[in-house]
């Protein structure tokens, strides 16, 4: 949903606040998730994530979500899969080099990040994607990785 996607960027601040709470809950749930088994949760959670984020962001389920670093504009909608900022081909009107009918994902990302409290996260370097993670749940990955970290530091 292209229009929902643009809406999400306009409301990046709100979504950021929501996600920050949501992430805290996810991390707290880590022990529970572990008891149920991440394996068993994977399919239903991934399916839910796909529907929700698919609607809001045109999420492509890359498995390593960076929306907090990209002004709530999903970089996987960029035809070049740019995860670190726009390519050099952005059109003068801010539309995409490859798809002239689509606003450049990174022009959107930049405006979205300006609205966010922690928008400066757009400046951090993203490493190349692990393509094996595609279609898996980024939410569960965050719960597990940050949950384990938290357990380790307690």
């Amino acid at each position: 949903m292209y229009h929902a996607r643009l809406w999400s960027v306009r409301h990046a601040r709100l979504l950021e606040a929501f996600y920050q709470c949501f992430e805290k809950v996810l991390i707290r749930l880590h022990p529970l998730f572990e008891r149920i088994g991440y394996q068993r949760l994977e399919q239903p959670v991934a399916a839910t994530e796909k529907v929700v984020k698919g609607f809001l962001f045109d999420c492509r389920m890359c498995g390593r979500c960076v929306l907090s670093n990209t002004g709530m504009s999903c970089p996987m909608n960029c035809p070049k899969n740019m995860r670190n900022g726009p390519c050099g081909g952005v059109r003068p009107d801010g539309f995409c080099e490859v798809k002239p009918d689509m606003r450049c994902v990174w022009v959107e990302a930049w405006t979205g990040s300006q609205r966010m409290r922690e928008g400066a996260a757009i400046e951090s370097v993203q490493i190349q994607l692990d393509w094996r993670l595609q279609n898996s749940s980024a939410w569960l990955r965050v719960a597990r990785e940050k949950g384990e970290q938290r357990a380790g530091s307690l």
Partner: protein
Amino acid sequence: MTFNDEPPERGTPLSIRPGHSSPGRLERVLRAGNFAVTAELSPPDSADPEEVYARARVFDGFVDAMNATDGAGANCHMSSVGVCALLSRVGYSTVLQVSCRDRNRIAIQGDVLGAAAMGVASILCLTGDGVQAGDEPEAKPVFDFDSVSLLRAVRIMRDESRLLTGRKLATPPRVFIGAAANPFVPPHDYQVLKLNKKIAAGAQFIQTQYCFDAPRLNEFMREVRALDLHKQVFILVGVGVLSSAQAARWIRNHVPGVHIPDAVIERLERASNPQDEGKQISIEIIREIRDIEGVAGIHVMAYHQEHTIAEIIERTDVLEGRVCWFPECDATQACLSASAK
């Protein structure tokens, strides 16, 4: 210009000076504080090495390094690795352009090793134009890396002597790492941050997209200086030569990311001799660029206008009397007398 430690045999590498990353002439020229000139060499549609040498000779004496493009505009030509290997063989200093469009991480890391082994000392990490820009729009775009993750990968290979997987390299690629910047397209206020990101990822020199809009460049360089980025990276500004108003319009509409102000096109339109006017425009822009604080050189991309470069460089005197190294250089007095620091 020659260095005091020129290798006895042409085509063998110079030594790597303390504090330098590569044995390349480009890095040396820049670190010595000279205003550098690089030029784009467009690889031929041919398997004949002589074609590559003929294209290189046009620049003899006027450029510090030549960039071999990698499927520029998403059109197939001789590979940049092939071109650079041929040129390095006779001692030319090359910049290997690597685009993320056609190869994945396995292929690219392998090419970086191969190219370094053949004498390539500088690598320019690019995202690359989309396949839609070229004559094979039906091709599968790869984009496994983007320019920033590619920069980081090459830096890791060089500085940590390993592949991304962690597998050790017996000898790392000793390369001077470059990236592109385009100050002339939106989102304008993000461009300097993107530059900063590229520096963080490993960029040591920058070659920008064509500059036909000096005020915009000035603004960008002001932002660069405010963050002190010009002290962390050598910035070479891209310049082109327009041959007519039609050509300018075609480039503007067909080459992704090129910004040519209307005023420039109108000037070409009004001119009685557009060829000369095109040269004149380039000369004026180069003079302006040269005087901007923080600019380390120019990168000339004069597709189909390569023959005009010598005259333009001479008339702007950006080399300040320097004669850049070329294979027959040692035979000419000029080259020796201008030998470097």
